[in-house]
C-alpha cells in the first residue's frame, strides 16, 4: 500500500516533500481528481478540442 502510494505520487509529478504535505485521505482525494475518477470524468468531445489555425487566421492576425 505505502509503496503503491509513493509510486503513484511520483507518476503524478509529486516530490516526497510535496506528498508529505498531504494526509493519506487528502492524497486519495488529490489522486481521484488527478486521474478524473471522481464521478465527473467524461471523454473530451470534438467541440472541446481546439482546431488548428488556418491561413485566414494568420492573415487576420497579421493585418
Amino acid at each position, binding site marked *: 500500500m505505502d509503496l503503491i502510494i509513493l509510486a503513484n505520487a511520483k507518476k503524478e509529478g509529486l516530490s516526497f*516533500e510535496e506528498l508529505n504535505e498531504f494526509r493519506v485521505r487528502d492524497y486519495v482525494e488529490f489522486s481521484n481528481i488527478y486521474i478524473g475518477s471522481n464521478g465527473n470524468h467524461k471523454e473530451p468531445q470534438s467541440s472541446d478540442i481546439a482546431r488548428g489555425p488556418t491561413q485566414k487566421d494568420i492573415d487576420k492576425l497579421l493585418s
Partner: protein
Amino acid sequence: MKKIKIGDKELGLRASPLALFYYQTEFNKDLMSDLMSLQSMAEINENDFSDFDSVKLLQIIYAMNRANNYGKEFPTFVAWLNGLEYMDLSDPEFILDAMDEAMDGFFRSLNGEYQKKAEEIKDKVSKSKSEKG
C-alpha cells in the same frame, strides 16, 4: 497536522503517506492494520486504556512524528523513545489525540466521526476526574 504532548515534549504528528512508509521500513508491519487493531481495543474499553497496546500506539506516533520531520535527521525508534523523558501511558488525552490524527488522516471514509467520538470520551474522562478530585 496535530500536536500532542508526551511528558514535557510537544510532538507534531502528520498522517501522511510517508508515515506509512516509515512504519513499514522501521517495524516491518502495516500501519493501517495495526491501527485497526488499536481502534477495536479502544471500542471495547472506552474509559479504560490500561489494556491498550501502548507499544503499537507509540510506534504509530513515531512514524507520524518522523513524517512531520521529513528531511531532517531522525533517530531510530529506541533512541526516540529514550528521548521522551516521561510519559503517562494511561493518559487518555494524548492517546486520543494521536488516535484522532491517525484515524482522521489515514481513513477517508470516517469524515470526522472518530474526532467526535474522541471528544466525547475526553469529556467523560475529564468529568470523572473532576468528580473524583
